[in-house]
């Protein structure tokens, strides 16, 4: 059996869990096993029925009043009991912030660790070889699992497609799990400040990264955005340094955008940035490091100094627009 984790907030599905279902179904096929899904919750608000429409052996509702809001202690207890009962070969999850928080804890209880943030896998001589990114995306590593089940694997967002999850008709099973002491008290989740700019509607985005070097240089990128009639955005370190406000941040912690044109200036292309902009129609990268991961997803690239390229671009665009 392969167990897929269903993440939700008050019964509302986190869509990446559908990617986990696809991953579990794909692995199950390759290994001659069946996939099931697990929903930790206090009461299943119709979510089990939603998930039961996929081709799974069963949907396990791991239920306890203490699972009303997420805490790592409660989630770990629920998972521990389900794993002991079901003896899965693999536990498969999407590599979300919540999963990062509790999955290694569950694994450690079984004297295991997590094979985390996997981007793909293949079967080789009957064994599974998983690939994950290392060195901030600069290199790939092929990794194998050793030892006995259960194995814990998390997949990077986009490694499997949600719309490839196969439909079917699964049974529902409720397990009333024990949850012990919960040593942390959560408050309500909140958004820091209502975003004053909505970059999701921008057609053209000029984004700056650490390569911009200083706050003064942001003006150069602003000029480029202005001549293009676009908006300015940034990678995380720029917003951390408060060179631009946080509502300009693109990526897993910030906004997700898909403009017609995304120009990345001095951005390396870390996965947490890329998930926020990879669906842009056209991606341009200007970076002096030819190995920067941003070039993996760029349609057009300039390997070189952005301080040489951008002023020329501004002049050239002005010429074109002047005609």
């Amino acid at each position, binding site marked *: 059996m392969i167990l897929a984790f269903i993440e939700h907030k008050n019964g509302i599905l986190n869509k990446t869990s559908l990617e986990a279902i696809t991953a579990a179904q794909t692995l199950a096929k390759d290994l001659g096993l069946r996939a099931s899904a697990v929903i930790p919750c206090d009461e299943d608000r119709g979510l089990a029925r939603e998930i039961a429409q996929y081709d799974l052996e069963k949907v396990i509702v791991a239920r306890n009043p203490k699972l009303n809001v997420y805490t790592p202690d409660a989630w770990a207890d629920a998972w521990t009991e389900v794993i002991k009962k079901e003896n899965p070969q693999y536990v498969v999850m999407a590599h979300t912030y919540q999963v990062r928080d509790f999955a290694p804890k569950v694994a450690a209880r079984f004297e295991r660790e997590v094979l985390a943030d996997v981007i793909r896998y293949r079967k080789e001589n009957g064994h599974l070889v998983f690939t994950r990114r290392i060195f901030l995306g600069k290199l790939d*590593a092929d990794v194998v699992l050793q030892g006995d089940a259960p194995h814990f694997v998390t997949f990077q967002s986009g490694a499997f497609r949600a719309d490839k999850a196969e439909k079917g008709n699964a049974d529902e099973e409720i397990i009333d799990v024990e949850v012990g002491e919960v040593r942390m008290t959560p408050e309500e989740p909140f958004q820091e400040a209502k975003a004053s700019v909505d970059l999701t509607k921008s057609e053209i985005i000029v984004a700056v990264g650490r390569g911009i070097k200083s706050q003064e240089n942001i003006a150069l990128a602003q000029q480029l955005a202005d001549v293009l009639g676009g908006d300015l955005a940034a990678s995380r370190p720029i917003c951390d340094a408060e060179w631009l406000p*946080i509502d300009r941040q693109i990526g897993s912690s910030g906004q997700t955008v898909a403009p017609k044109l995304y120009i990345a200036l001095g951005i390396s292309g870390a996965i947490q940035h890329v998930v926020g902009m990879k669906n842009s129609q056209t991606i341009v990268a200007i970076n002096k490091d030819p190995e920067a991961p941003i070039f993996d997803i760029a349609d057009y690239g300039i390997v070189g100094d952005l301080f*040489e390229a951008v002023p020329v671009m501004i002049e050239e665009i002005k010429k074109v627009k002047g005609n």
Partner: protein
Amino acid sequence: MKIVVLMKQVANKDAVLRIRSDGKWIEEADVAMQTNESDGYALEEALRLKEAKGEGEVVVCSLGGASAKAVIKDALARGADRAIHILVEESYKLSPYQTAKIIAEAIKDEQADLIFTGLQSDDVGYGQTGVILAELLGIPHATIVIEVDRSSLNGTLRVKRELESGWYQWFKYRLPALFTIQSGISQIRYATLQGIMKAKSKPVKEIQATIPEFPSAQKIEKIYLPLKTKQTQLLGNGDAKRGAIELVEKLRTEVRVL
């Protein structure tokens, strides 16, 4: 109050990485090394918490080879009180569970009130050593901590976790607890000349680690340059200015945004 901060030495962000001839790791000898970015923030947060409380001890713990001394020296110069160096050469061979197990053994007698770590390392990026360590030590944890409510410290501590897409959440923890710290939580201080001088007399305990058996370790078989998924048109052939002219032409004729 005692805070243990875990800090790791990793390859410099901008270093050019060469793959070793056996394909299993990089040539470490020719790579400039630095303190893992988020670990630096973990130390800063520990120092600020100690300063806010007006008492306490910050103990830096680094697992790594002899070169990791640079990380320790720097942390002591910034204000850590003492250090534990767990000596393991070729520590990249350790899986996260093994690393956590060795560290648990080395620090358990410290009885720390708090353990801070970076949220992931910029080399192997397992992102779980802290969480496994908390479980091995039997203490609660939180990951991706982006703010610490220093004024709340009183046998308990409030911390702000980052959720996805611009959401946050505060949690209150009873101590002892372990937190993995996100980069950017605060501005990192520089070491002062006085700090550098003082660091020389601060105690560093060296521990020779025994590597625990761990049959379930994940094993790196091969590393390589990522396969390209997209055909990128590289413009200018190394000349950024010419690239810019070509790019604007493409924006006009192919992308059609001008």
